[in-house]
């Protein structure tokens, strides 16, 4: 059920930055899709990654764990991560888990790209 509820798209927003558009759910079952998107972004030469959560419907603890895995991989490649489009609820969860200290949080794509 949950596997089909995740969608990821990758686009180069500028020469060095890729945006990963996340649709639907972020759970442990989303890991293959997110990691494939990350690899695609890296292949495109992204030195910085922006996660677009504006079409996120649901994220659980498994999804948070998956974001930690992504952070570890991106840190190894010295690729900073940013995010935008989080609802107040998920912003609070990012604060609780301290993900907001490791991932720059912005209100919109323009700010995230400028950051």
């Amino acid at each position: 059920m949950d596997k089909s509820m995740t969608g990821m798209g990758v686009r180069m927003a500028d020469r060095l930055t890729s945006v990963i558009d996340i649709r639907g759910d972020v759970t442990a079952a989303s890991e293959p899709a997110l990691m494939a998107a990350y690899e695609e972004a890296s292949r495109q030469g992204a030195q910085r990654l922006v996660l677009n959560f504006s079409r996120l419907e649901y994220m659980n603890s498994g999804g948070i764990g998956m974001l930690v895995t992504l952070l570890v991989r991106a840190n190894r490649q010295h690729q900073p991560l940013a995010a935008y489009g989080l609802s107040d609820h998920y912003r609070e969860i990012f604060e609780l888990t301290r993900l907001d200290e490791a991932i720059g949080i912005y209100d919109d794509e323009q700010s995230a790209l400028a950051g």
Partner: protein
Amino acid sequence: MNRVACPAPRRLASFALASVPGSERVALMQVADSVAHLNLPPQRLNKLKTAVAEVTMNAIEHGNDNRADLAVDIEVFYSGTEIIVTVTDHGGCGDPGWADEDDAEIPDLDRKLSGDQGPGGWGLFLIRHMVDGMKVTVEGERRTVRLTMRTTVPGGQAGGLRHIGG
């Protein structure tokens, strides 16, 4: 001194879900539907939904071992001042198991990023931070996690209670 009897919490919903992936989404929607008339502020309702989903997911995966033939039983009550959600699985085995806070390692992002901790283990941490109370009871193989969320806060008229909702 005479004591005023507290009315028993009123049951708002009672349902059982199969232990299959995705049932936690059904649980959070059904719980949200059952408390909709209480007009919790959206932020509080989202917290309750997240906690219910996490407890249900743990009940499915760790309590019932993903056995579809074992149900997760969920009940929702309203006491007049708080919402109570109970989630029961079949993995008690005489101890709190996955819901044992004393056994759970506190997730630490720095340790996770340095590889000292695995990336997961956020479930119990999230549950504790989303609701006002969490209590675990075990009776034989039946483990019940009881979540509480207040719908009132102190500070109403004459030091009474003020409803949190809109």
